[in-house]
């Protein structure tokens, strides 16, 4: 668990050789408990429309949600939702001039205004978890390169939009359509570098809950979250949820583009550091995950008293079936069933759980929670390590001291 231990340190400005006296900067920091460090991250500077966020990168922005945001409720407010851009993001969008080109293997390519998109079909609302494929990467052991996220590159929101299939129908899907690819307004800063474009198979594209969305928690999508439109694929990692959508392209074959064919892939077999020449597949559906949010790692609890633990859980690409509190790995398999909170948002939403221990008789060492989804997928005891740190789903553990 990477529940934040906040510290405030004064940064002594004015390194030797500085021509001008600089003001002393005080930075509020959070400790993500990344093994081996560096583990402290600033909670500043503040970004427009955002509350306190863990600043992983300034440009293009990578902002992580502090774990305390998940301590209450199941919806992540817009101002606390994590932010992730691969390439520099445009900082302004003219709504009237924005167009979405629908082309490729279609009957008749079209260029749609925002109003034409919004009226392409029935307005649909769905609550779904948006989670980066690399969420929790910084906790990988051995460590791997890439954005060093704690577990806060996730959030759950209500998304409003129209079905992708209704937008596709405006152009008419051509015969032998295999995949649908999306591009946004974010483009590489260097000539010849790969644009961040992503595609999904046709059967996923035609799902009733795959959206071209403009609404996030009943507000227009903030620019940082992809205004004016983003793709929503409930149950799949957010790499497919292309932001600032500007192009929809129907493909008749496999997608050979960089971010599908070469990255955002993970091994089909167990691997260890240094392994090469194994087959990979795109990282797509999310596994179940769960977290204790009522107590941080290392917190103190009252000896001899009852203890209620609470948290959040997700089923991933299927509904949540159950959550169990589990003892230490070598603790003899002690398990206690947790009580699930109401199913308010459907299978792709966060759900709360709680469990009360009648009496704390000792330290609670390396306890964790383990989610199981309705397909019987269970969080594993050990990390499924991969060199990109994708799809972390291992049981997350904390230790509580009884006194």
């Amino acid at each position, binding site marked *: 668990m990477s529940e934040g231990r906040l510290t405030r340190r004064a*940064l002594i*400005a*004015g*390194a*030797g*050789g500085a021509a*001008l006296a*600089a003001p002393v*900067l005080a*930075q509020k*920091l959070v400790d993500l408990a990344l093994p081996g*460090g*560096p*583990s*402290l*991250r*600033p909670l500043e*500077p*503040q*970004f*427009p*429309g955002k509350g306190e966020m863990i*600043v*992983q*990168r*300034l*440009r293009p*922005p*990578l902002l992580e949600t502090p774990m305390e945001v998940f301590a209450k409720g199941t919806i992540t407010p817009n101002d606390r939702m994590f932010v992730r851009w691969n390439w520099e993001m445009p*900082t*302004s*969008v003219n*709504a*009237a001039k924005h167009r979405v080109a629908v082309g490729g293997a279609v009957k008749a390519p079209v260029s749609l205004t*925002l109003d034409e998109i*919004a*009226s392409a079909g*029935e*307005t649909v609302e769905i609550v779904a978890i948006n989670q980066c494929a690399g969420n929790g990467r910084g906790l990988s052991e051995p*460590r791997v*390169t890439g954005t*060093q996220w704690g577990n806060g590159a996730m959030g759950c929101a209500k998304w*409003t939009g129209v079905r992708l299939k209704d937008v596709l129908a405006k152009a008419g899907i051509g015969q032998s359509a295999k995949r649908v690819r999306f591009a946004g307004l974010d483009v*590489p*800063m*260097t*000539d*010849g*570098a*790969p644009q961040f474009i992503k595609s999904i198979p046709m059967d996923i594209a035609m799902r009733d809950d795959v959206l071209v969305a*403009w*609404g996030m928690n*009943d507000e*227009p999508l*903030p*620019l*940082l979250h992809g*205004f*004016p439109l983003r793709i929503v694929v409930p149950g799949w990692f957010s790499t497919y949820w292309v932001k600032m959508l500007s192009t929809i392209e129907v493909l008749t074959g496999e997608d050979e583009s*960089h971010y599908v064919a070469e990255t955002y892939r993970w091994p089909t077999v167990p691997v260890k550091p240094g392994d090469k020449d194994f087959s990979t597949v795109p990282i797509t559906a999310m596994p179940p995950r769960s977290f204790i949010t009522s107590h941080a790692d290392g917190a103190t609890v009252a000896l001899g008293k009852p203890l209620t633990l609470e948290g959040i859980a997700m089923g991933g690409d299927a509904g949540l079936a159950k959550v169990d509190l589990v003892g230490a790995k070598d603790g003899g398999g002690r398990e206690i069933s947790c009580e699930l909170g109401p199913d308010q948002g459907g299978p792709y939403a966060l759900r709360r759980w709680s469990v009360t221990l009648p009496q704390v008789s000792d330290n609670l060492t390396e306890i964790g929670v383990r989610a199981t989804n309705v397909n019987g997928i269970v969080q594993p005891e050990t990390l499924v390590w991969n060199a990109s740190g994708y799809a972390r789903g291992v049981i997350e553990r904390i230790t509580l001291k009884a006194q």
Partner: protein
Amino acid sequence: MRALPSLTALLLLTGCDAAPKVVFADASIILPEDPIALPEGPGRQAVIENCTACHSPSTMLQQPKIPREKWEAQVKKMIELYKAPVDPKAVPQIIDYMMHAQSQPADVPRETPR
């Protein structure tokens, strides 16, 4: 003809069962500047000239410790895959700097004048 679009819109609104009518307004934001600058170290100038256009200093200083060969591979990836216009002569200096930055004690806040 003019009556037709508004009639369509009206029908859609009815069909949407109280869904809020979406109005798309222009949007713009101003992103904050990085409050952290790169600390002194060998190769700092090469990093400033070749890397900081895309990588903010705070991000560079948050990377986990990796061996020199991995930094070489990272820089190669930036040049070959992402077409970063890096001066080939600057590459060893960039790697020297990253190795130096990572040899500093972890989690010591790095101070710098703006």
